[in-house]
């Protein structure tokens, strides 16, 4: 592992979840988290912010998670950034669809606040090892 995970981009349209999650990630995980409330904004700030890991909500107005992911992969510098979905679409068949996309994992809402940072670190480690 060359580098530890520090910079995280979190895309989430629900303001309250965003607030709580950012707090958890910053407080418990010690990450530096940037939050965008739409996929569009996330794509816009991506190059400038250059995150190490992206946590992407699925159900969003306008550009949803999978679409954001697809567009994001078209940006050269974002091609290799590990992405994980965080979604309330928790049914097995729904998750199966998401896992097939170019992501390192799917975190199901509601997440365990204590375990969330650990989960993300694990996924990061997994992506780096690959």
């Amino acid at each position, binding site marked *: 592992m060359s580098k530890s995970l520090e910079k995280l981009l979190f895309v989430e349209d*629900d303001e309250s979840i965003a607030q*709580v999650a950012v707090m958890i990630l910053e407080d418990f995980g010690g990450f530096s988290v940037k939050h965008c409330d739409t996929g569009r904004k996330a794509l816009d700030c991506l190059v400038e912010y250059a995150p190490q890991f992206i946590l992407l909500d699925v159900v969003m107005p306008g550009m949803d998670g999978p679409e954001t992911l697809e567009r994001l992969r078209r940006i050269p510098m974002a091609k290799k950034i590990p992405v994980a979905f965080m979604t*309330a*679409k928790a*049914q097995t068949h729904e998750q199966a669809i998401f896992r097939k996309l170019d992501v390192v994992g799917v975190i199901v*809402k*509601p997440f365990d*606040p204590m375990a969330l940072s650990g989960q993300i670190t694990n996924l990061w480690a997994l992506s780096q090892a690959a």
Partner: protein
Amino acid sequence: MTPATAVNGPKIPKLTRGMLRPSGISLKNKIIALTCISVLLSTLLVGGSNYFRIQKILLDTSVENLAGETRLMAQRFRFSYDQMKSDVQVLSQTSPIQGIVRSRANTNVDPWDGSSLLIWKDRLGTIFSSMMAMRPHYTQIRFIGIADRGRELVSANSAPSGIMLAPDEDMQQKWREPYFEAGLKTDTNDVFFSEVTKDREFDGLDDRLIPTVRAVIPVLGKDGKTFGMIVINANYGDMLRPAFEDIALPYDAFFLNSSGDYMEYRKNGTIGNFEFHDNYTVPLPLFVNRILLAKSSETVFVTDDAVSYFVRPDIDQGNPDAFMGVVVRVSLKELLARAYEFRSLSLLWGGLLILTCLATSLVLAHRFTAPLNKMTKEIKQSRGGEKLENLPVDRTDEIGDLARAFDHRTRELADQKAKLTAILDNTVDGFITVDECGKVETFNRSCERIFGYKAAEVIGRDVKKLMPAPYHAKYEGYRKRYQGAEECASIGIVSEFEGRRKDASIFPLDLSVSEVKIGDRKIYSGIVRDISERRLMETMKDEFISNVNHELRTPLTCIQGSLGLLMAASGRKNDEKSRKLLQLSYDNCQRLTRLVNDILDIEKIAAGKMDYQLEAADICQLVSDIIEQQISYAEKFGVTFKTDFDSAEILVSLDKDRFNQALVNLLSNAAKFSNPGGAVEIEIFLKNPSQVVISVRDHGSGIPSSFRGKIFSKFAQADGSATRMKGGSGLGLNITRKIIEAFDGTVDYESEEGKGSKFAFVLPVCSPMKMRA
């Protein structure tokens, strides 16, 4: 409703011209043939037997006639002999004979009246001459004395010029002649007939070769000894000829004697010469020879071409070895001419009879079979299930019965068809039948509605027209498989398929196919139900569930995250009361999440929509991992997990996530219901080589016996108040059982109140083959 528009009826093999023809001999030809054969046979039988009977009768009567004729002729011959015999006897009684005897004994002078020998001789000569004049066939009459070597005393001879008395100097000595010797041995009054010989004169043959028979009678002297003999010579041919002439038979006849001499008479009246046995001018016919061998007095001889009758005339010739015979012969052809005539007539009449019968049977057979042929034509021209209009139902005979029965049955069938058609047309589901080649045969009204095609546009076409292209290959596969199958079993598949409407739109349908065997033909019937609306509803429901799930989880996420943050903060502040309240809130938040999960799962299981991603997994490893995850949970209840199994690989086919869910349910239940400080024991062992058991045992309160049987049902909790405190939806075990059953496993438990419970999964072990797959 007008039925029969949409349904073409189950197609039966088309009637072809060939099928309507009787495959064997037609009824018409049978009638003709039977009539002709029976007439022919009876004609032959009657004609033949009559012919042979008549032939027999004719033969018998002819033979009888023949016998009569033959006897008559024999009688006539006997008469000739008898006449000659009586002539010679009469001559022996005449007075000159005794006068000569007396004169010779008395120096040539008769002592009675003094007449000289010469006078008596002269008188005898006169008697002889008159006798010969009476009998033209007598050639010579003589009185021969014994004395002087049998010198003739008187001799009358026939000569061309008339009857001549031989002068004394011409008298011959006959002592060497066989008849002379025979005459010496003959008794008085008996007559000896000699063999037929050629006439002899002066010890030599007469030039004329006249066949001659001699009748000899001895004459006694005074002393009672033979003095001499009277001998009549007869021309044998002339003697016999009148017999033939008198009877004038219409048949051939023979007269013959034991020496083999014969005389032949032909039915045209000609009479042959007398033939000597040693000098035949015409050889004796063979059959006559054979007849000569017969000993009986009367015999019938039947040869291939003739019938002959033989009679021995009863003639005493004074010689036991000599005999005569008469044979009358008639050719069979002549004899049976009438029989042959009858035979020809019989044949003629028989032929005429057969021709008449042939003509009659032709007419009759045509009349019998014409109505049948007409009916057949009528049936052929009608379509299946239609009423037949022109049957000969008015006839009063059997054909009428047949027609009425047929009419009745077709009406019934037509009614049934109308009913069935009406039912099929009014069913909501589409009904379609397809032949073995995939051609549509039936297409009901609902099908028209579902697919948008008119029946006429589809019937006779390939059923592939009704399905989108991607299904063609799959359908061909099915068709070939079923076509090949020998057994006519109902297929009965209900499967979801896609159909294509006339407007090319594609829609989901439920299809249930069954195979029907009609005769030696298979057809496939399908019931089609358009399920687009149901699909739409299902999709909407799925979306709704997904959305509800999402919308419930979103606030829960926020709450749970916030509570987590607050708990961390309160921990740092060391505010015990807040920390406890927050923990409570957090636990309940988790409980709410699980409840949401459970309700969704139950809904999915009920709808049969639970997705299982089956794969072979090492059960020990999987169980260890799951226990690992649940340790922290159990710690909350002060419970520890104790495992008792080695790490040998046991492969089970299952969906890891769902198995996780099922086992977590057991583990969390066990933890929840254990007493603090208690242990939950987990065991894995092979029940047998093909089944593995995973058991979870706790030492908690156990399950009340009253609750058994309900434990796996939905929303089941033994004691509402107590268990609710532990946090549970009451759905867990129900879901667990459904999941395990989806892996072909079973769930069971045993429990003692106050001592704890033991739940166990029994799952099938993968075979090595399955494992690799």
